[in-house]
């Protein structure tokens, strides 16, 4: 910690010296008596002053928490004597110090613990510490300030609403799952009745139809398969401030979709497409949800002018016939190009367009009306370009639940079945 004079030292010294010299010059001992307490303070401070020793061990009550919850930082304090010690909670953007700073005194050789609480406002991976400390010597003539302790990492998971209905993929894969495949085979859902063929199992004979027609018939059943779902997050641009930004909403929506699809035994993968391209191979199972969420935490906007395309993504990350759900505000032409490329490669693409107008809020008032109209027109043009090429684009306004947008997507796909290649 660095030390510096407290304003008290200069003020008291000046006052004491002035009073003494004034008293001597004017021959008034009462002036000297007036400043005597300040002189005594300085003398005591000089005699008892010492450099404080302080060691702070920073720990966390839980290293993983969720948005909206309170994270507790546990501080192990050792050292002293420090009659006045201020410790300030580190508060990176996204976390808010609930208690602000704490002021305490630490006795010589004491070992104490203190708790600093932080409200997790936004998902993300944060590093807490070192923490700011400010101490005073016993008479407050000097103050010592600096950063103490080793930082610790905390991961704040996004909060999401549980989705009851998802957008069903157009095609299924070969693994068993909860989705009804178009192909017939061993399953539960009835598909159709056909005449018995050599090799058919006797238990599948439909006795009613067989008795009516006199020819053996069997029931055909739909296979139950899973599907591959790739969550494609456009992280080229960010709009909004605080908790609700385009990227925050995209991540929360992606987490909700991942949880829903993994519940359906689908394989889920993630592609963060922006200045920095990140991906997670598709997999299934409850544990994979945590891998997806961990991957989503690292999603951030990284400014880059490099032109990105799908070539940088390994082929195994984008399995054939996968449903690709793209979460994008349609603000960057590079992500638009990647989406068009996905569509041309035959992926079942659904674009959830996150409407950014509400997120800019008061900034919109300051923007020239003409510029605002141009901005909207550009987004409209991009949306129409995608729709013209056969991509399902659904606008999601952040003030309405994600399920509303998914219902619109289901309706769109029911009425305009995407061409399957």
């Amino acid at each position, binding site marked *: 910690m660095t*030390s*510096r*004079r407290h304003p*008290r*030292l200069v*003020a*008291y*010294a000046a006052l*004491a*010296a002035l009073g*003494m*010299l004034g*008293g*001597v010059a004017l*021959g*008034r*001992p*009462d*002036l*000297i*008596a*007036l*400043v*005597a*307490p*300040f*002189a*005594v*303070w*300085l*003398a*005591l*401070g*000089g005699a008892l*002053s010492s*450099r404080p020793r302080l060691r702070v061990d920073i720990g966390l009550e839980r290293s993983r928490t969720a948005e909206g919850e309170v994270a507790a930082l546990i501080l192990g304090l050792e050292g002293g004597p420090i*009659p*006045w*010690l*201020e410790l*300030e909670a580190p508060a990176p953007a996204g976390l808010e110090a609930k*208690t*602000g*700073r*704490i*002021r*305490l*005194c630490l006795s010589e050789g004491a070992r104490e613990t203190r708790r600093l609480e932080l409200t997790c406002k936004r998902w993300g991976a944060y590093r807490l510490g070192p923490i700011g400390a400010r101490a005073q*010597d*016993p*008479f*407050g*003539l*000097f103050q010592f300030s600096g950063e103490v302790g080793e930082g610790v990492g905390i991961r704040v998971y996004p909060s999401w609403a549980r989705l009851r209905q998802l957008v069903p993929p157009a095609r299924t894969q070969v693994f068993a799952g909860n989705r009804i495949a178009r192909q017939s085979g061993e399953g539960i859902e009835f598909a159709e009745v056909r005449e018995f063929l050599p090799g058919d199992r006797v238990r599948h004979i439909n006795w009613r139809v067989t008795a009516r027609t006199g020819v053996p018939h069997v029931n055909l059943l739909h296979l139950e398969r899973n599907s591959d779902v790739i969550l494609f997050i456009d992280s080229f641009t960010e709009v909004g401030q605080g908790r609700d930004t385009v990227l925050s909403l995209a991540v929360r929506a992606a987490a909700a979709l991942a949880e829903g699809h993994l519940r359906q035994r689908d394989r889920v993968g993630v592609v963060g497409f922006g200045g920095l391209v990140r991906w997670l191979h598709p997999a299934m199972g409850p544990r994979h949800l945590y891998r997806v969420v961990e991957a989503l935490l690292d999603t951030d906007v990284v400014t880059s002018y490099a032109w990105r395309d799908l070539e940088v993504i390994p082929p195994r990350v984008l399995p054939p016939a996968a449903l690709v759900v793209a979460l994008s505000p349609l603000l960057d032409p590079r992500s638009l190009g990647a989406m068009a490329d996905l569509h041309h490669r035959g992926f079942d693409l659904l674009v959830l367009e996150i409407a950014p107008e509400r997120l800019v809020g008061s900034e919109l008032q300051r923007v020239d009306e003409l510029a605002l109209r141009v901005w909207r027109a550009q987004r409209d043009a991009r949306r129409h370009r995608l729709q013209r090429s056969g991509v399902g684009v659904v606008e999601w306004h952040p003030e309405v639940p994600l399920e509303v947008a998914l219902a619109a997507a289901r309706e769109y796909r029911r009425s305009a079945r995407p061409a399957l290649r």
Partner: protein
Amino acid sequence: MAAVGGGLPLLWMIPIQVAGLLALTGAALLGRPALVALGPLLLGTPAALALVQRGPELLAVPLGGALLLATEAAFLAGDLSSRGVTEAAAIRRRLLRVGGATALGMGAAAVVLIIGTVPAEGGLDLTLLGIAAALGLLLAVGWLGRSRLRG
């Protein structure tokens, strides 16, 4: 009724001073910094009034103490101005420090007055003593500041 200096009744001054001391003691024991400001006000006001009206020099003693308390209260208020939680033990310790130093300072002031009011022909010449004390204080503070800032 006996009057102090320009006519402030002594009977009024004593309870006011006692109330000031009680306020400071209460603030120290309860850990309530809001009460600190009341102490210097009650202690200092009558003494300042009397001194301005050419009252007895003895009033410089409580006035000096009150000035120190008021200054310390201002520093404490400054330290508490930012948002946060202050433990009562820290406040208590700080107020006890202020109270102790003030008492010692007022004792020193009384000693200075006793020495200063001794007749010149039979007592000490304060001129040299005062100059030496003031210069010594400045040098001590300067040396202290340098050594601490280096350390």
